């Protein structure tokens, strides 16, 4: 499974900000850490701001900070802002869908998409932060 660029940037930014929810961090600082485009990230952060997941502060010491509940917010909710996941995501009809072969293929793909959706919806930002802590501990960070 591969996420679209904006989605991936959003998840990384949310994780970065949620790790220290009292801290403001600029788009450029986040972009530098993950080696991604600051301009693109700025657009993503504005979208996250409109959704209430981050808050922006202007001026010296400004930047973005996490504004959601890390124990409640799950990965599917972040990803769903940018792209559709799961068999109920309203996919367009594709050529061959009306054939038995197309229906069989769609059934298998929907199983995969539903599993992905269930996985992403069960992992909160808080759980992701625990996973990151474990990885850092293993790596001596």
């Amino acid at each position, binding site marked *: 499974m591969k996420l679209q660029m904006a989605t991936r940037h959003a998840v990384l930014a949310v994780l970065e900000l949620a790790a220290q929810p009292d801290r403001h961090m600029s788009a450029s600082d986040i972009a530098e850490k993950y080696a991604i485009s600051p301009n693109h990230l700025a657009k993503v952060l504005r979208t996250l701001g409109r959704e209430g997941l981050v808050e922006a502060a202007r001026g010296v010491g400004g930047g973005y900070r996490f504004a959601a509940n890390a124990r409640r917010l799950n990965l599917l909710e972040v990803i769903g802002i940018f792209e559709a996941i799961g068999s109920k995501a309203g996919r367009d009809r594709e050529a061959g869908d009306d054939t038995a072969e197309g229906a069989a293929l769609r059934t298998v793909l929907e199983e995969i998409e*539903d599993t992905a959706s*269930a996985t992403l919806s*069960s992992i909160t930002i*808080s*759980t992701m932060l*625990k996973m990151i802590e474990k990885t850092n501990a293993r790596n001596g960070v």
Partner: protein
Amino acid sequence: MPRSASSPNPVTIRPATLDDVRQVIALDNKITHAPKPDYWHSMFERYGGVAADRFFLVATRHKDLLGFVIGEVRAWEFGSPPAGWIFIIAIDPKARLSGLGSDLFDAMCSCFRNAGVRTVRTMLARDAQLMMSFFRSQGMMAGQFIELEMDLGE
């Protein structure tokens, strides 16, 4: 295994006794709205008491039951080496978000470790998001098995 002996209202996690079954039934009914006393009595007969591979733990404060967990070490089904299975964990809604679920989970894992297993496993409905999030938050990930099923009506 008292959870917090220094607090004024310590929670105790211990093996279930027959006297707990009435409150287990009531808590399950409170959560599922489907009373099933016979089922819980049979679960106590199977998992209650002291056994090396079956565990029925309850969390209590004074005489109030706040939650329970049931698990068992099972071996070689589906070709799996011995592993601890958690069948159910239930917490009184009033006692949630206090870490009690994590404490019951940890207590069950200790039972499994003492029984010599190094893997803990459970199975959930795909749409049981709350329970799945809980187990994920404990560090559980998808395992090496996939559950398959078929409608026999066709």
